[in-house]
């Protein structure tokens, strides 16, 4: 329990659970409001709702790890060995999401190229064969 007495930690837990509840309600209301469910015709851009949700979720994660899991009261070296490796995930998120949107753009380009009409020029008297996808199977 670290430096807190029983009564102190009890009231702290009560406080934290109320904060977590309020954040959760706010997140849901904000998500629905951003999509126009609560006030007719009011929409927020996805960038704003997205950032607000992610920041609030990180706040919730902080409260759960630091208060409920008592990370706050652990030795600093232990905290570092657990938390520093998770920073690698920042790289993973950026790299993979970047790749994901690249696939999307690539798919768009491929679709455009496929729909582009090219008339084959067939020289007179020369026997030609147009390659189809079957030729590559």
């Amino acid at each position: 329990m670290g430096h807190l007495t029983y009564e102190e930690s009890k009231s702290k837990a009560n406080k934290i659970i109320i904060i977590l509840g309020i954040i959760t309600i706010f997140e849901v209301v904000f998500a629905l409001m951003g999509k126009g469910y609560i006030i007719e015709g009011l929409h927020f851009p996805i960038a704003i709702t997205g950032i607000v949700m992610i920041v609030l979720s990180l706040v919730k994660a902080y409260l759960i790890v630091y208060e409920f899991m008592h990370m706050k009261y652990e030795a600093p070296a232990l905290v570092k060995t657990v938390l520093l490796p998770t920073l690698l995930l920042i790289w993973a998120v950026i790299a993979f999401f970047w790749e994901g949107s690249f696939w999307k753009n690539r798919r768009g380009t491929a679709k455009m190229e496929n729909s582009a009409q090219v008339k084959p020029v067939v020289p007179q008297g020369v026997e030609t064969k147009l390659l189809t996808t079957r030729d590559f199977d």
Partner: protein
Amino acid sequence: MATDTLVHENTEATDKSAWSGGKSPFKASYGKLMMWYFLLSDAFTFAGFLIAYGTLRFSMPTWPVPDFVFSSFPGGFHEKPLYFVTLMTFILLASSYTMVRAVQEGHQENKNGVVVWMFWTILGGIAFLSCQAWEWNTLLGKEHMTVTKNPFGTHTEKGIYLTADGKAEGETFDAGASYLLHKAGAGHGDAHAEGDAHAEGHGDGHSDHGAHYEGPGDYADAVVNEDGFILKKFKVLEGDDAGMIKTESLGPKAFGALFFFITGFHGFHVLSGVVFLIIIMVNSGTGLYTKRKNGYEMVEKIGLYWHFVDLVWVFVFLVFYLL
């Protein structure tokens, strides 16, 4: 004499640094430390799943809208976006709180307190699992989403549905509107028989479904595919393809697999958590941990695990339901 000096030097070194041996630099027991590292590795597993979800979602032109997909509530209610998952979140948060209380009572060496608060935590875990069972049952049984088939699609163009006689006189929809494909025949009728007037409203522009289709084939207003999904025909009203007749298609395939695997993996954590909570509650009740006189450290360890399950849910809730 030489030995004495050596011992003396070592004691001095220990005072200077926590890393010279003789005491635990992390001030934590082996079990607790390893629980932290297990949770760290588990966090990476979940992060891998969630990043895969994000990557696939980013790579698709459209993606099912969560507040359309998750809008059912027990008792036949529909169009209640996110209400049910919010309830699930609160159940898990509440069980996290009761777990904190159990750990606190453990530090007080209060056996009855530990057992009572762990009991509430177990009830919370079981309630969460029941909610998830209902959610899965709705998606699998009534909305026909499976690991490989996703009936939740999104329109990319403004259009108007064809009516049963093939004329473009049905309901109109905008680009970005979500739809849920229904199945032809009895399957869907059953699903809505238990519902009420609200049930019919679920799925924009699908007020009539199923009745007049006899098996797979091409009909005037829809195509029924081999799995029995009714792909309604519509006339495009705007854009490059204006005037063309198109049919609806199934939504991104990966959605079903990602949903069932990620929430399933989380649910499996909750399930194993409940099993371990029961074991540790029984052990607490028999007085096993009282004898150990270490402030119910076992309760603290399962507490770490249980909070981690809650922590993962925060992020599952974020990426699947909120964004």
